[in-house]
């Protein structure tokens, strides 16, 4: 029930090469050493095509520490999809038969708007204070702006306070820092699965914290009103199970709007989850990184920060970033909002390692301040483009008779391809994923998100029309059994991962 980190960064959507069934040991060193001496199971190498990991590990030992070797191995083995993509990236002119990436959750629809905004003269300020060591929580002017921004867009009942804001270089760092300061080595967070799989790694890499999955069902049963519905009963059960196995759970991670489900929680649901956490004295980390990417007007999104009277404000920590909502994953800006000063201070203490350039901090403040542009230009346009792309892909899927989930938020559709698996196994899921990749379209398979049912895929639609059309055509080909490229042995075995990133 606890999962090993999969090597997936926020960027690449990949199929996991790492086995995700083993238990993490509670002790840092021990766990890793055990990992090393263990022969990685054959299935792994067979499917992820990274060659024999054992050989890799043994050759590492001369230079790397054992944990260094394990870290590298995870990285190498799970980056396959992304690496393959990067060696053969689609380009309209230069590489029209290259791979289309519908796997990475990145908004590529609004670069024109963003580039022009970021090039305006107010962005170009350079002053000495921005070039020097900052306050590690982030520059005061930015924290003030973030507080105002979140107060407005999260509809908080009272103005949020800059003292409760910490700024750092992305939400991955934030997960890592929170895990480190909230948990001891080997302790755990609850997380409803499927979930954005990279979090496993975020909390594990430095923090050595593991995730306990609250598995959700695609089938609507009992009082459920929709597939994969999170209920307090499920949370209670997962917590009990963890406790009975001696796993100390310190918190709950919620993603809202949800990745990969595209789901959003109602205020009532949110409150129930928060009450559950309060009953068990659990911290709640709410990842709201898609909060402005709700493109369907009928979908009423509600931030945790909008709730009147949080059940346990000292244990409620909200995360946001510009990577998704402003389509700037390369900018590395993430922020924490927490009323708990100790947590804010402890996270800030780690910011020397997760800091953000002063110049970028200045630009972010300018951007977040420009409410006119955001409200009148960016958001309407972004939502319209997201909606158009979504409508197109949803229509394609409907035409193919493929069921999917989507509630009008996020950049992706959670697609049910179970009927395309000859057998309901993750092996078959992986084979289908491989067929997509061989047919030059990269998707993310359910296993990457710890989905317990094989056959679900996440399909990212926030890309330009021509790429999207081509990508969908390739998806159709695979599902209709008319792949252009025959299945052939994959050729990833010997390449050095780094060179493949180029």
């Amino acid at each position, binding site marked *: 029930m606890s999962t090993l980190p999969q*090597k997936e*960064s*926020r*960027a690449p959507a990949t199929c996991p090469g790492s086995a995700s069934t083993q238990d993490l040991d509670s*002790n*840092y*060193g021990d766990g*890793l050493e055990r990992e090393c001496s263990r022969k990685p199971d054959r299935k792994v190498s067979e499917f992820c095509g990274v060659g024999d990991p054992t050989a890799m590990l043994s050759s590492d030992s001369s*230079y*790397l*520490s*054992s*944990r*260094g070797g394990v*870290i*590298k191995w995870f*990285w190498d083995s799970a980056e396959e999809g992304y690496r393959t993509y990067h060696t053969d990236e689609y380009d309209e002119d230069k590489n029209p038969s290259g791979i289309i990436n519908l796997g990475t959750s990145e908004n590529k629809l609004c670069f024109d708007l*963003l*580039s022009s905004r970021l090039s305006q003269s107010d962005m*170009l300020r350079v002053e000495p204070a921005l*070039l*020097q*060591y900052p*306050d590690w929580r982030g520059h005061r002017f930015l924290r003030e702006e973030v507080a105002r921004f979140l107060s407005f867009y999260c509809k908080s009942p009272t103005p949020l306070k800059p*003292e409760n804001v910490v700024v750092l270089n*992305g939400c*991955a*760092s934030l997960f890592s820092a929170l895990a*480190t*300061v*909230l948990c*001891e*080595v080997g*302790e755990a967070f609850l997380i409803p699965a499927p979930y954005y799989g990279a979090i496993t790694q*975020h909390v594990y890499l430095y923090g050595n914290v593991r995730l306990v999955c609250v598995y959700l069902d695609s089938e609507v049963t009992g009082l459920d009103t929709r597939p994969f519905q999170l209920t307090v009963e499920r949370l209670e059960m997962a917590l009990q199970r963890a406790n009975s196995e001696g796993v100390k759970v*310190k918190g709950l991670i919620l993603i809202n709007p949800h990745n990969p489900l595209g789901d959003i929680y109602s205020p009532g649901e949110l409150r129930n989850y928060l009450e559950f956490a309060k009953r068990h004295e659990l911290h709640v980390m709410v990842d709201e990184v898609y909060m402005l990417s709700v493109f369907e007007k009928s979908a009423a999104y509600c931030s945790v920060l909008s709730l009147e009277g949080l059940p346990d404000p*000292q244990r409620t920590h909200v995360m946001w970033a510009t990577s998704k909502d402003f389509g*700037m994953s*390369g*900018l*590395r*800006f993430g922020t924490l909002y927490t009323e*708990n000063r*100790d*947590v804010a*201070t*402890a996270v800030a*203490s*780690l910011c*020397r*390692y997760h*800091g*953000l*350039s002063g*110049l*970028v901090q200045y630009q972010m403040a300018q951007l977040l301040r420009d409410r006119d542009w955001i409200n009148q230009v960016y958001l309407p346009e972004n939502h319209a483009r997201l909606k158009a792309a979504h409508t197109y892909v949803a229509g394609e899927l409907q035409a193919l008779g493929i069921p999917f989930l989507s509630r009008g938020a996020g950049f992706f559709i959670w697609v049910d391809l179970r009927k395309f698996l000859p057998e309901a196994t993750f092996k078959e899921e992986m084979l289908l994923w491989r067929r997509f990749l061989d047919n030059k379209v990269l998707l993310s398979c359910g296993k990457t998100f710890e989905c317990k049912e094989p056959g679900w895929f996440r399909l990212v639609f926030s890309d330009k029309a021509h790429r999207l059309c081509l990508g969908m055509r390739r998806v159709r080909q695979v599902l209709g059994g008319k792949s252009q490229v025959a299945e052939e042995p994959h050729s990833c075995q010997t390449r*050095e991962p*780094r*060179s493949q*990133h180029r």
Partner: protein
Amino acid sequence: MSHQSDTIHLPCGQMRGQGLGSQGTHTRPLEMMLHLRQTIEKHIMQLVTRHQQQDLVLGDQRHHQATGEQEALLGNLVSQLVSLLRSGATGGLGLQPSYPALDVRGDVGGGQEAQSSGQPDQPVHQLKDPEATFVSQHLSNRGIEISASYQANLQDFRIYQADKYHEDTNPLGFINLGISENKLCLDLMTERLSQSDMNVTEDVLLQYSDWSGQPFLWEEVARFLTYYCKVPAQLDPENVVVLNGCSSIFSTLAMVLCDPGEALLSPPPFYGGFVFSSQLYSKVELILVHLDSESTDANPHPFKLTVDKLEQALLEATLTGKKVRGLVLINPQNPLGDVYCRDSLKEYLEFAKRYNLHVIMDEIYMLSVFDESIMFHSILSMESLPDPNRTHVIWGTSKDFGISGFRFGVLYTHNKEVASAVSSFGYLHGVSGIIQYKLCRLLQDREWIDGVYLPTYRSRLQRAHRYITRKLKALGIPFLNHGSGLYVWINLKVYLDPCTFEEELLLCPRFLDNKLILSRGKTYMCKEPGWFRTVFADRPSG
């Protein structure tokens, strides 16, 4: 039980709570009494609860052991109280370091415990910051520890941040000669960075990129280092990793080269950030290779690092069961301001090779050599490195270009495995694409660097150095006169009576009271009290 470390930091919290921290020294005995009493009360409470809990759960043996620990601690506190009263307690924050029996780290991994014994006593002094808190029921033990040690380390910096000196707006603010930050050329940098070529916002800069940096920046860094490190053959961009600062590079290197509890050798005094960085995530111990500050006939250079000393430290560490994985060197040296000569470097590298040790070479001050008679040798300039696969070079723009706010650090290593393993951490230490572009432009502009920046920078360094050394001479303060870095290593031993680290610590608040921040030798793990580092890379006004 899980928050025993609270007690250690309680004094600070208390002082803050009562708003006493910033008062003159005469109130200290009172404060000390007060927080001692409270600490003792708290421990008695813990004793009682422990008795109760352990009667329920644990066997007798552990019960006695735990009780013993608490009793030892109490005894310790009481004896300190007595000695404090006897000594008249003019300041006495020396309370905190000696709680040997208490396992602060609780049940954290073995490496960490091993680490704790080797740790310096953190200067938990004078918490004046209203936001500083150490007592929390919400943080993990390591969270508390991180917060505390960080705050202690950066206390002065935060005081400074809150009350920065400014010619016009805050002429009474703090002058910071403690943080090694190059403020001499902010005018040049501001101007250069404001030029239009810096401002490019392309799609590719806004998207996810390779986590170890943008390929265009690797290439520029490789070219830059090839040129300025005088490398015989062109460096390979594939060997470059870019992260958000040298602390991140060092921390990740420690992570992938050492397992928890393993160790790196380093000769103090050295940059105190290494202590924090090696301990923070990676739980790696730094083994101190102590040097002699006295110059003798046999040893004409104070603090001279020799292979004998390295051998000895390695042997001692090995005998105590430590697994030493590498050697950390800073060149030009921080805080000594010295550079290693080529032969010495070769010897150190040969030594490391003999024992299969990695060498982490921090060359972050490589362009800050202002004495023209001094030749700096990057190890990348060597015709052949003794053990290239175990040699890793760190550089960044924070010091040489005075842009610490940029958050940019570089690793150059021939070892592909190490580069790749460090890159795995990239997404936790990423640099904004826009910044990577600006850095690329900056490093590319050789004409400006060689024609404008470096000559001005060095002459300003020279002038500032001349100014400060003249002042020091006039005051009769001994110092090491070297030609690189942003700081002078000065000896204030004569002002300590007795010559102890407690007294050294007590000197700091006296500087602070006069709105001046220096950093004391203890933070550099210097073995003898009385040394201070004073940074001179600031504008001369006032």
